[in-house]
């Protein structure tokens, strides 16, 4: 079920919130079971057979977790932990990477093995990483309570199930177990509703409006001019940021209505002043996972400079591969890893850039890397980045029909101002701008401005004063979003 669908917004979410608190009045355990059931419905809505994969994954991880909890830090437990990790990585490998491996083996060795006919279970990357973290925490003795219903809810809780945030057992289980959080809290419902509305706004009013421009640019990667390439790059960079952070805001908002605080996943990432800062603000729970469960266990900052730099690269290549089985993701991860190495040495020079320049450089680097991330192939990525670098000439000509009118925009402005008529200029009026394309332009401009404004949606929702004016504003915003819902698309991160 999509967060940005009528089924979810008008029926599922209200039913989940109302049902949860209504049942919790009589039985906390029944309320938890109710949320488990609702989460199953939410997941099965896509495809019932995926539920079996999720159930199998949870059952085996729960068994491993129980064993590791009872024998935390004891001899022999490490082997069980490794078995658990092999199970999780194996499952992820089978569903996500086996065809990639076979296709590359075929290409390199000239073989002709058939690819598996595998459908990728939704959210598998998210629920697998969540449970890997749980097993490692259990082995380290950091898991103190393990009720099967709470564990079930911890993994399946619908706000985070499909696209995160990647949560920690220790930050969720106390909340599920706390009876005071099962009492209706109107403050949390109001703030959750605002955050959910702002997330929906980001998705349907911004990301979905920009999407046609990004899609058109990437579909015509080989024919882009310099100007086209930059519009394509900025479009996707801003589309992804608003799509994914919009999803996260909706997830956090939905959970908050039920008094559950999910970890923040975004904090104005395009205001980052360097690439390290960026990863403290972008997909923060993935960064946390990569740091705590890959980078630090492999040696981290203690490993010596050379190994540390190598670990930067290895960690981010794994991060890239986590997104999907494609060389574009590997290269995207590699670029970020190398950028961290460069930053490490740059910092040693003690030549900090002015803040505005640092933000601009980081932003440009990140959106260019995202072009690699989004491209259908490395060749397409090369086409786009070559055009953007001016290797095909620095032309301000626009080739893409979606935004070709931008070339006429000064004339259109001149005409709309009324000056053209006064001066008797332009007997042939320029063709009208398609309204969808104008919406894309407006959304792109809004996204650009909002990306660099100080307050995030989370800040607004958590600090807002409940005045009548703001009530009307939020109500109207929600209504406008609901009107735009039929044109909404799937969230980009659902495919990961």
């Amino acid at each position: 079920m999509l967060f940005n669908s009528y089924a979810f917004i008008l029926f599922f979410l209200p039913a989940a919130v109302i049902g949860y608190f209504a049942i919790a009045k009589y039985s906390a355990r029944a309320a938890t079971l109710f949320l488990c059931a609702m989460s199953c419905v939410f997941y099965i809505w896509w495809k019932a057979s995926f539920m079996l994969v999720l159930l199998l994954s949870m059952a085996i991880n729960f068994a491993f977790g129980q064993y590791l909890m009872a024998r935390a830090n004891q001899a022999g437990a490490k082997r069980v932990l490794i078995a658990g990790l092999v199970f999780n990585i194996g499952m992820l490998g089978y569903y996500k990477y086996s065809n990639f491996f076979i296709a590359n083996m075929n290409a390199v060795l000239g073989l002709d093995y058939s690819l598996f006919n595998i459908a990728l279970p939704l959210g598998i990357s998210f629920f697998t990483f969540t449970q890997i973290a749980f097993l490692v925490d259990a082995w380290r003795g950091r898991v103190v309570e393990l009720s099967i219903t709470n564990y079930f809810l911890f993994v399946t809780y619908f706000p985070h199930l499909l696209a995160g945030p990647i949560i920690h057992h220790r930050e969720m289980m106390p909340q599920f177990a706390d009876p005071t959080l099962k009492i209706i809290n109107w403050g949390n419902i109001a703030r959750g509703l605002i955050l959910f509305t702002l997330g929906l706004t980001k998705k349907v009013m911004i990301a979905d409006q920009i999407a046609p421009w990004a899609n058109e640019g990437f579909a015509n990667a080989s024919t882009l001019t310099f100007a086209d390439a930059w519009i394509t790059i900025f479009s996707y960079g801003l589309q992804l940021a608003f799509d994914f952070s919009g999803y996260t805001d909706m997830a956090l908002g939905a959970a908050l209505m039920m008094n559950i605080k999910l970890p923040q996943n975004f904090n104005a990432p395009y205001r980052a002043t360097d690439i390290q800062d960026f990863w403290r603000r972008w997909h923060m729970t993935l960064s946390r996972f990569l740091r705590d469960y890959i980078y630090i266990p492999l040696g981290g900052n203690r490993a010596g400079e050379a190994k540390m730099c190598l670990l930067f690269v290895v960690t981010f290549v794994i991060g890239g591969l986590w997104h999907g089985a494609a060389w574009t993701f590997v290269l995207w991860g590699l670029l970020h890893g190398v950028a961290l190495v460069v930053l490490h040495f740059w910092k040693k020079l003690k030549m900090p850039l002015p803040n505005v320049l640092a933000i601009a450089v980081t932003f440009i680097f990140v959106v260019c890397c995202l072009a690699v991330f989004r491209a259908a192939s490395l060749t397409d990525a090369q086409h786009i980045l070559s055009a953007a670098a001016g290797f095909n000439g620095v032309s301000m000509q626009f080739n893409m029909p979606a935004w070709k009118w931008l070339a006429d925009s000064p004339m259109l402005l001149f005409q709309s101002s009324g000056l053209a008529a006064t001066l008797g200029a332009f007997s042939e009026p320029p063709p009208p701008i398609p309204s969808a394309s104008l919406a894309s332009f407006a959304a792109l401009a809004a996204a650009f401005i909002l990306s660099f404004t100080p307050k995030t949606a989370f800040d607004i929702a958590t600090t807002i004063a409940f005045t009548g004016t703001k009530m009307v504003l939020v109500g109207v915003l929600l209504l406008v979003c609901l009107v735009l819902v039929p044109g909404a698309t799937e969230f980009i991160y659902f495919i990961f």
Partner: protein
Amino acid sequence: MKAMLTPQQFVRGVISLSVIGLIVIGSFNWWVDPFQQYRLSSFYAPRFYNAQQRFVNPGLAKHADYTRIVIGSSLMENVDTRDVDAAFNVAPNVTSNSGRSINLAMSAMSGYDANQLLSLALATGKPTHIIMNMDYNAYAGAPTRSGFSSAFPTYLYDNHFVNDAPYLFGLDTILKSVEIAQGKRTSRFSESITQPWFWAGNTEFSAAKTVRGLDANNLNKNHKQPGRTRDAMLLSFNENIVSLVRAYANVTFSFVYLPYSKLVWADFAQRQQVDVTLQFREDAFNVTAAYPNVQWFDFQANPALVNDLSHYTDIYHFSPSVSRDIIQAMAKGEHRLTDETLTKNNRWLREAAKNADVRAIIDAAK
């Protein structure tokens, strides 16, 4: 308005505002019903929006008065149902909304799109005869592939009111409803129920127009038709079309191969699609051979239609007069496909594809 509200008042206010807004919008859209999902328009001339065929057609299928359906891709859009009724000797109706035939064509219709629409129409019990063009490209890809670039509006292809929210509350519907209420005519639409999707009015049909802008080395450049495989085509045909033939044994299905210009066959040759196309013709014919409610018609191996580019506006699309002639021929039972004619026609088409000299054809047409 500056007074502080309690969180509960705030939540109630936000929800009330948006719910009341939705009720107002939904009621207005239901009343105007621009895509005629609940009734044929009564207080304004019906509007058949070309860009919204997949939204309007289900409404037509549910509420129009018909017994014969003309359905297919853009090649069928110029068929005038008055010609169909005349050809099949149906007395002309006096009221505008009461034709015996209905045209439910859709641009880039896939097998899936056809299945969705025909399932809805057949479930009404109204149709007794389906005339459907067999466009090979409709069976490319997975059986669930829609030819519609946006999400297919499945919620309109049933009789459940409860899932109509995207129609009742959506921006597209609001804009159309407002346009109708204001009496404006900014969108492109037809008001004729006998020609709801007709586009040939100001279109030039000539050999010169047909070859304009063609790349002789890549005839598919302008149309970007997908590649096809025999297995996928047959799977889609079986799941989407044969399933309906089987389920509605009392309904006659007339499948027709409409003519393509010889440049389409040259395009198939350029893309190695000739074999798969001819194999599909055999497969589709054979899998329906056991069904007495199926008829096949073939106008593709007709030299007069295939070789004369003056009938076309591009390599695929022919003029309304060709549509009219074809319907008349079908009504008379001409150009029926049999085991013998299938073999003979396939042989002719293979030769046509093989022998087409693209540069010479284009030069001659210019």
